[in-house]
């Protein structure tokens, strides 16, 4: 039997090998994304699958996020007589941080695991091999389109989710604090600046890229068997979730340097 230190060393080695493979995979994406033929039809289909079909989930999540966040914050702000700050506080928190991260995590679960499972089962049932022997480049058709679609759709989903969260927050403010919707959104507009919105939106492209990249990587190189499909789907979510926090940290760090928040 291998000693624990040997097992640990093997795990570390395979972890770094996987990071290397992922980097190579990302490099291949950037190489193939700019070369013909462009799979526009498949890209649109993936945008529809990832974007339109996630709207309900993102909408419900965003709405509940806005409701709960406002309900939980209200008593504390009331203690200090600062209820009027509620729209500013909620909008800045949601737009800058909570909205993008929570919705990206939800999308990692829905989109990332979906991509991992779909490509994994295509690999196991030889559908990817079938594409290759028919003379089509499966990487371009399956991988490039999905990563691009995730990169393009996630910012839109997050903007939509943030907006719905603010509507949820406005409803609570209207019911509990008798603040009109007009007043609420005027205060939101006053509070939010470009330095809140632009960096937060830019990082969502990276979130989308990470979800697409890890999902396709795990699915495309899925090991044989149904167990492999499950593992691809599961690990796509786990790795993406970790990666999202790393990207978020880097983004906040960079924004902190340039905008001195």
């Amino acid at each position, binding site marked *: 039997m291998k000693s624990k230190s040997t097992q640990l060393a093997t795990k570390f080695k395979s972890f770094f090998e996987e990071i290397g493979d992922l980097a190579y995979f990302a490099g291949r994406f950037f190489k193939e994304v700019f070369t013909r033929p462009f799979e526009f039809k498949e890209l649109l289909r993936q945008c529809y699958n990832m974007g339109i079909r996630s709207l309900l989930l993102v909408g419900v999540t965003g709405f509940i996020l806005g409701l709960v966040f406002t309900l939980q914050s209200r008593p504390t702000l009331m203690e200090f007589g600062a209820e009027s700050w509620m729209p500013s506080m909620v909008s800045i928190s949601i737009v800058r941080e909570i909205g993008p991260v929570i919705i990206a995590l939800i999308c990692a679960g829905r989109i990332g695991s979906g991509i991992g499972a779909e490509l994994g089962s295509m690999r196991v049932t030889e559908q990817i*091999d079938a594409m290759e*022997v*028919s*003379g*089509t*480049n499966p990487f371009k058709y399956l991988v490039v389109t999905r990563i691009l679609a995730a990169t393009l759709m996630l910012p839109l989903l997050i903007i939509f989710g943030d907006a719905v969260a603010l509507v949820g927050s406005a409803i609570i403010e209207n019911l509990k604090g008798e603040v009109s919707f007009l007043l609420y959104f005027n205060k939101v507009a006053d509070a939010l600046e470009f330095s809140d919105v632009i960096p937060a939106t830019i990082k969502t492209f990276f979130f989308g890229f990470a979800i697409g990249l890890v999902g396709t990587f795990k699915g495309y190189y899925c090991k044989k068997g149904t167990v492999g499909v499950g593992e691809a789907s599961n690990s796509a979510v786990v790795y993406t979730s970790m990666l999202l926090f790393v990207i978020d940290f880097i983004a906040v760090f960079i924004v902190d340097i340039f905008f001195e928040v």
Partner: protein
Amino acid sequence: MEKTNNKEPVLKIVDLKKSFGDNHVLNGFSLELYKGESLVIMGKSGSGKSVMIKCLMGLLVHDSGLIEIMGHDLSKLTLNQLNDLRSQIGFLFQGSALYDSMTVRENLEFPLRKNKEKFKQKDALVLEALESVGLAHVMDLMPEELSGGMKRRVALARAIILKPKIIIYDEPTTGLDPITSKEIIQLMRDIQEKYGASSLIITHDVDCARVIANRMILLIDGVNYAEGSFAELALSTDKNIKAFFK
């Protein structure tokens, strides 16, 4: 089937070797497939049949040896050249490998995408291929709505839609009931007659081999163990060969 006399090889494999670590799967396998011929390769599970056809289609890179398809050395081709060559080869996968997210029509149109001339005639070509396998009425169904036998026939239609010069069948009757297996074997014969393509058939099915083979190769431990017509091999007294025909 009777032996063909055409001695023009469309596919040649010489001394093919492929290993995965210490596992030597192919240890010098060779074959020649002639124009219009049906060559059956039989071997036990793990004997290297699937690895051999994956090397043949460029899905795996072989360690050494020569693979020549229609005069082209596979190892010297660029990816584009390989893809052009692949479009002249039809491939029937063991599990049919139909694209789940596409209708039957879209599955059949998929191999046509690279050829603009043929893509313009896609409706006629799809109909012709589906009529060849007797399934013109399932054109707009999804693969999940088809039975196992129907899936295999649709996969066969997809394999022949570009009118390939070589058709490779990977276990064409595996997982099918005896009646459906006979239908598939009959279809393979009909397609062979209609298109005059050379066929390379990997199978465990002795009935399939008896009906379809002009010539057979027995693959054991990654090498050609025996070669001959079905009748010659079936009458052999070698216990390893006899084991296949029990």
